[in-house]
């Protein structure tokens, strides 16, 4: 049976992103000179979201649809999609920026630190659960469904091959190659 190679292929784009994040991350722990925390170059690049909101959403995005096999770059791209939507509608931008502030305040109140700094995933998820009916949460969750799962790079990681007509379909590429049911 033909299966799909789910290993990451390093693209230039994801390499740049990773190295930027790494560089900033290294800076953050070296000598206290660095003003920007990890990933802030990315967070500053948002069109409608504040840098703080982008950083919070990056963690929230993974908490909403956690796939341990997916690196942060996929979630960052999903947040970029949400940002692009917010850039088209100032009401959406306000909803998301305010929502991120509220989520952070909830964390400060409960744990004495920001949402991103709450170390335990279950604690963060419990906070999301408390706000799951809010328009903010629903906007992010809905945005993630397409923002994350409509990325061709994510399809490959989940074993979905995407477009096939340009390859002649699956007629000669395993449409009926299942071999683990004996009487099939």
């Amino acid at each position, binding site marked *: 049976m033909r299966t799909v190679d789910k290993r990451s292929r390093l693209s230039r784009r994801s390499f740049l992103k990773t190295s930027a994040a790494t560089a900033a991350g290294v800076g953050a722990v070296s000598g206290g000179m660095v003003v920007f925390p990890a990933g802030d170059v990315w967070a500053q690049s948002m069109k409608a979201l504040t840098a703080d909101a982008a950083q919070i959403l990056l963690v929230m995005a993974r908490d909403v649809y956690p*796939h341990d096999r997916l690196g942060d770059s996929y979630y960052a791209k999903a947040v970029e999609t949400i940002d692009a939507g917010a850039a088209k509608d100032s009401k959406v931008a306000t909803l998301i920026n305010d929502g991120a502030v509220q989520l952070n305040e909830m964390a400060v109140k409960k744990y004495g630190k920001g949402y991103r700094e709450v170390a335990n995933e279950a604690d963060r998820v419990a906070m999301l659960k408390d706000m799951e009916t809010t328009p903010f949460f629903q906007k992010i969750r809905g945005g993630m469904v397409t923002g994350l*799962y409509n990325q061709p790079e994510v399809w490959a990681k989940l074993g979905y091959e995407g477009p096939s*007509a340009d390859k002649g379909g*699956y007629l000669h590429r*395993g*449409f009926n190659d299942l071999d683990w*049911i004996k009487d099939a």
Partner: protein
Amino acid sequence: MTAKFDIDDDRVVVVIGSGAGGGTLSNELAQKGVKVVCLEAGGRHEIAEFVNDEWQSFTNISWLDKRTTSGSWRVSKDFPNLPAWVVKAVGGSTVHWAGASLRFQEHEFKALSTYGAIEGASLLDWPITLAEMEPYYAKAEDKMGTTGTNGIPRLPGNNNYKVFAAGAKRVGYKDFHTGNMSINSEMRDGRAPCQQIGFCFQGCKSAAKWSTLYSEIPKGEATGNLEVRPNAQVLKIEHDAKGRVNAVLYADETGIIHRQRARVVAVAGNSIESPRLLLNSASAMFPDGLANSSGQVGRNYMRHMTGSVYAVFDKPVHMYRGTTMAGIIKDESRHDTSRGFVGGYEMETLSLGVPFLAAFLNPGAWGRDFTSVMDLYDHIAGMWLVGEDMPREGNRVTLHATEKDAYGLPIPNVHFDDHPNDMAMRTHAYRQGSAVYEAVGAKRTIRTPPYPSTHNLGTNRMSANARDGVVNKWGQTHDVKNLFVSDGSQFTTGGAENPTLTIVALAIRQADYMADQMAQNEI
């Protein structure tokens, strides 16, 4: 040679919609020498424009004009402005249909007399029998190249089918196979055989699947008797002082409104737009809407009892490879009240890509329980459950009280409440679907709620008696003799089967009647 008719040409039959009903009717009439203008609200997107991308295709060809919903159905909560997933393009929903082409069973034309009166349901017998329909079903199967008929071999089963069939065998089902599909298993009618592309819902790139877009319509155009006008949004049907329809108002792509005169008008805009158009065509003579003296226009909206079961296995399946609907189990389609409900249902394999599965597996779900299923996407098999739902007077398409479209016309609201019979059937179907997969070692099964409706039926239903419905046994409205309904909104009841074959068979039959009535100057 494509015809071009003058807007003041009052000899033409105006067909509104170009899908299974309208596209077929247009070609059938054109073949008989009848002049036809087919007005299609959507654009003409040929095969080269189809994309193997679920969301992109959805954006390109779906009917996305705003609609509202009400009622207790879950679609109203999850997709409040998308009650139905249908196509707005030349070819209508035959562009994205799966291809399943099943005849109704004899008793399904006699629902009231077979099931008896059921509380909360507005059941009725069709004014036609299976025996009357059989010759037209045969013509439809030949036209569409349905596998398993006319000596056409069935399609080979894909991986999703292998899991499904092995499970069917192990639970003791007898009547299962790769279906009666209007998808070429060999070269036929100038169209190629299926390449197992796996994007049937996004438009078939190889034209193996029958669609009015590239089968009926070009054939009709070749006669010189058919003109298809895309991007023509019909707004109103007009009538004369005697109450006969005589013209159709439509807006073109630029918003300019035209009046096409007509000898006969046939409405085939699917079960939301067709009743909406009749209601929006109200006049002093027809204050409740055209052809609505019964008050039944828009009522008895049916969408089939539906649901899906997805199952996760230890080993890979890759369900998305090959035809989207690759096989059927028919054992549960019988009427057998020992199961706790009337009517029956079909079990049909179905696959969704990652983008659509994420959106529809369990709308609104999030967290690790959800992602643990998506993580095993390539180990999932899937099936759709589709059965007869009960018509209800209160399940209906109405005009929105305040919201208007770009032309100032009220948008439609779709109200739906599941009947207890629908819920009992769905529970049974979920259990049986899960059993099929558990028999082949499923680690987990997921019961997926209904998608936005693809089978929209019943809102201009056929009835023997004018007070019970909107059209007679020919799809001719009881009130206006030169006004016809030619889509699934004619259905008196829904049956368990996917409706397209019946819509096409009815259109072929209606064309015979209409041409005959025109020849006799009755219309």
